[in-house]
Structures are given as structure tokens and as C-alpha cells.
């Protein structure tokens, strides 16, 4: 995803002189090509995220197209109020990136791990929220955010979990993507970001029981597509590397409780911080987000509903 991101920025910088990338002294190597080829369209604002977001707003008001890069723990989480007041309040076309969401910074502890960014950003009126899972969804989100000229936040979680999509998404996509084998099985797995590959693999183990979907558009939520999905399945499991409070799973519950109520289980990060240091895989296990752990949770949920898993 990071290569797609880097290339998109260079291509856009060459195409649109109004484009400018702002970073809070983050993104080592990610912007090498941009700095080499379009150095005037790269602005390191220093370790000062609050000011950077305000400056981006002023640049947008002055006719530029700022993209603001940071780690998800800082952009948007540290600067929620600047995004609200300076950018979203006026509908300014600023695209914000939060990199390393979830447990990517597994060895650096609570300051760099981020389970709150979707909850924070979803609550900001007028801000679109994306959570792509692979190169294809990233390219779709970037193009849609740029062309839409709306305040947008793009979450970048664990970036190298492999491709999910085999071909590009059309710009007319609703932002809810059925993966291979999805039809009218009893259970629907709706996953976002780094959990999509896991959902695909789990569904492949139980093709008679589960369909898997990727949901890269968190806000505005593709409510009609979700309601149609809810009509085809008897229960939903949401999967995200984010708090179970306020993230994608919460958004799905909110939408479907009105439009098409059905049992929904949210798999994600519980209401606690990481206790131990270790690899990314280690932290996924500490938080119960490995394939085996999720399989057990989904099986128990299915049993309660009288929907035992079947291969």
C-alpha cells in the first residue's frame, strides 16, 4: 500500500501544481521520490501536528490541495479539534493520512499504537473516513478522496498482509466489496483494513457457512449496500484492528439497527491497552485477533444462534 501511496503522490504532484504534502517529520523513505522529483511540493512542518493541520487548512483556503501525513496516533487522534474546526467545519479539500494504525508499532507501546482513530474521525461532521486493506483499495480511496474534494481521512494499518482484490475497484463502487465465494451463506464476515485477509481466509475454511466482505469506506457508510447484505445473511461478524467502541463494527451496528436488524458480533480491540511488547503477530495474539482465535469466537457466536460452522 505504501508504494501505491508514494507513487500516487508523485503522479499527483506532477499533474496538479496545487498539490502539497505536509508531514509532521514522519514518513522516512516514503517521500523520497516526491522530495526528489517535486521538492517544492513537500513540506516538513516539524514535530508540531496541531500547527500543521491548521496550516493545511490555510493552504486549502488559499487554493492549494494539501495532503497531511502522520501516524494514526497523531493524525487524526492528537489533532481531532484542529480537523474539526479548521478543516471539516468549512468542508476544505484536505486529505489526512494516519499511518501505522492498530498494532503496527508493536514494540513502541501505547503512544504509537492506535485503536481510536476511526472512532475519533467518524464523529467529526463532514469528514469522510477510509480504511483500505490493499493496493487496490488504497488506489481507490486516494482517487476518490482527491476527486471528491472533501475533507477525508485515510487510515493505513498493517500494509503488507497481501493483496485481497484481483482487479481495480471502479470509482462507482459503493465501498462494500464481496470477496471470492460470497453469496447467501448464513454468516457474513465484514472486515476492514488489516483484518480483511483474515476474514477471507476464515470464510474459505467454511464456504457453506460464511461469506466475506471488505468495507473500506467507513464514512459515509454504504448503508444501502449493507442493508442489502443484511437481507441475504442471518448474522454478521465485523472484524477490525480498532477498538470495538466507535469503529467500523459500531458503524455497521448503528446503520443496521435501523435498516435491517440482525445479530452482529464485533471482533476488534477490547477496552484495554497492550500489556506486553513484541512482534506485530504477538500483539495480534495478545488481543485475540489471530485466525485461530477469531475462528473460535465466530464458531461460538454461530453456535449461540444455532448456526454451527460447516465446511
Amino acid at each position: 500500500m505504501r508504494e501505491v501511496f508514494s507513487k500516487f503522490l508523485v503522479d499527483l504532484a506532477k499533474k496538479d501544481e496545487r498539490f502539497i504534502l505536509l508531514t509532521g517529520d514522519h514518513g522516512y523513505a516514503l517521500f523520497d521520490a516526491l522530495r526528489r522529483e517535486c521538492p517544492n511540493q513537500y513540506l516538513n512542518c516539524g514535530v508540531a501536528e496541531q500547527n500543521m493541520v491548521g496550516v493545511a487548512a490555510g493552504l486549502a483556503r488559499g487554493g492549494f490541495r494539501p495532503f497531511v501525513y502522520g501516524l494514526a496516533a497523531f493524525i487524526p487522534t492528537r489533532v481531532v479539534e484542529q480537523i474539526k474546526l479548521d478543516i471539516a467545519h468549512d468542508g476544505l479539500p484536505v486529505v489526512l493520512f494516519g499511518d501505522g494504525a492498530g498494532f503496527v508499532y508493536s514494540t513502541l507501546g501505547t503512544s504509537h499504537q492506535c485503536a481510536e482513530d476511526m472512532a475519533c474521525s467518524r464523529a467529526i461532521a463532514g469528514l469522510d473516513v477510509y480504511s483500505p486493506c490493499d493496493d487496490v483499495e488504497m488506489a481507490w480511496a486516494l482517487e476518490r478522496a482527491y476527486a471528491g474534494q472533501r475533507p477525508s481521512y485515510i487510515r493505513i494499518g498493517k500494509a503488507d498482509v497481501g493483496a485481497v482484490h484481483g482487479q481495480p475497484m471502479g470509482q462507482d463502487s459503493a465501498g462494500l466489496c464481496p470477496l471470492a465465494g460470497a453469496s447467501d451463506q448464513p454468516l457474513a464476515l465484514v472486515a476492514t483494513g488489516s483484518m480483511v485477509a483474515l476474514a477471507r481466509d476464515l470464510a474459505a475454511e467454511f464456504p457453506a457457512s460464511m461469506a466475506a466482505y471488505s468495507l473500506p469506506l467507513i464514512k459515509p457508510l454504504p448503508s444501502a449496500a449493507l442493508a442489502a447484505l443484511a437481507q441475504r445473511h442471518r448474522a454478521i461478524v465485523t472484524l477490525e484492528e480498532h477498538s470495538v467502541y466507535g469503529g467500523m463494527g459500531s458503524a455497521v451496528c448503528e446503520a443496521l439497527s435501523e435498516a435491517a436488524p440482525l445479530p452482529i458480533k464485533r471482533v476488534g480491540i477490547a477496552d484495554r491497552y497492550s500489556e506486553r511488547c513484541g512482534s506485530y503477530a504477538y500483539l495480534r495474539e495478545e488481543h485475540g485477533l489471530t485466525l485461530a482465535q477469531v475462528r473460535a469466537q465466530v464458531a461460538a457466536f454461530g453456535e449461540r444462534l444455532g448456526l454451527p460452522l460447516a465446511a
Partner: protein
Amino acid sequence: MSSDQANYFAGTFDQKQLRRHILAMAKAGNAVHIGCSFSLVEILAVLHRDFLRYPGNDPEHPERDYLALSKGHGVMAQYACMLERGWLDDGHIAGYFSDGSALMGLSDSRIPGLEVTSGSLGHGFSVALGLALAAKRRGSGQRTFCIVGDGESNEGPIWEGALLAAQHKLRNFITIIDENGLQAMGSTSDIMDLGAMDAKFASFGFETAVVDGHDEAALHRVLTQFCQGQDPRPKALIAKTVKGKGVSFMDNNNAWHYSRLTDETFAQANHELEV
């Protein structure tokens, strides 16, 4: 000079008249923050009369100078100037804070003439910096004036932004510190002593000056120097002001951060501001 002159508005921006407009709004809306507005009156009068260029007196003209009221609590002083420019009418004054009215009690960027949404402090300064940076990148001669409170300068983004302004030599960025020595709950020296603001901004890489913020000739002199001089640094004008300036019983009385006018205080204040 003559074509540039056409971009200035031929208003008097008389300080007593502006203060009477503020009183009228505050009375109509039962509003607070009168003292915060009174300390800004001469600063805004000088800016509107001689430094802010709005081609065609259009607050949304793309080539206008920018006035960012980062200290949003003084917004009634800007409303008074906007009334004189014809951007507001008497209905806005009489209907201040009435149900469904447009003007908020703090600067709101949706109103033409207010460039930033402020009140949560430290925001407008950063947005104004972005406007100044955009103008510089476009090669435009537009100026950005940003008014910051001394209490507001407790906020970290002010100092984050000061570093960026100096780093990028934003000479078109002119910040004016309304240094009235009072913040919401008391004196700045008791709460968060800022020391010598000119030395602080100078150490951050600004060209600085200190003037009496109610002396229009002195304000005019320094702003002229800032706008016409050759110093490449961003500018900081430390305006020594008095909160509540202009009405004897409000003068340096911090109660008028939050106090509301009664019929008696309204009449008394207006009486003092008769020509």
C-alpha cells in the same frame, strides 16, 4: 499607489462609534466578552482604515488581504468594523444572538469577513499561517494579519506556528498580540506569566515592535514599517492594550470578560462614548 488606494475602504472607523456598536450588540444579545472587544478597537480601526485591502470592498475577493481573528473572543469589535463597511446591517446588531441569527459569539469562518473559526484558542494563528504561506507560494502580494490574545498565547500551537513562520520567512505574515495583561480568570502575570513578548517573538525569528495599542498613530507607524520594510522575517507587533478600554468602569476591570450589560450600565457606557 493610486490603484492600490482604491482597494482601501474610505471609512472613519471612529473608535467611539465602533465601541457604541459593540455596546449595542452586547446589549441586544445579552452578550459577554465586551472587555475583550474593547481592547481591540484601535487595532482594528487602523487595519481597516489603512492596511486591509479588499478590492471592491468584497470580503471574499480572492486577492484580498486576510484578517484572522485568532482571538475570537473579540469578534464584536470586528463586527463593528464590518457594519461600517456595509458587510453587516443594523439588523445584525439588533438581532445579535436571536434565534436563527447568523453571527456567533466567536469568530466563525462561514461569515464573510471572518477568515477563521476561533474561540478554541491557538487555531486561527495556524490557519493564518497557511493563508500567508499560500499567498507566498502563489507569488501574491497579499498580506495576512493575525490578531492573537496574550492569554491565547498560553496555547502551544502559537509557538509551533511561530517556528514555522520564521523557518519559511513569511514576511507577509503580521501577527498582532493584543497584550491587555488579563485572561479569563485573572492577570496573565499571576496565571501564566508570558514575560517580554517582544523578546520571545524576536528569539523565534520575528521582526518585532512594541506600541501602545490604543495609539492609532503609533500603530499606523509600525504597521507601515512592517508592510513596507525590507526585513524578510515575519512580524510581531506587541500592542500594549487595556481590557475594557474606553469606558471608565470597564477599564482594566476583568469582570467585563463575563459581565453583561444592564439598562443602567448600558446607558452609562454610552454616555461616556458620546462625541
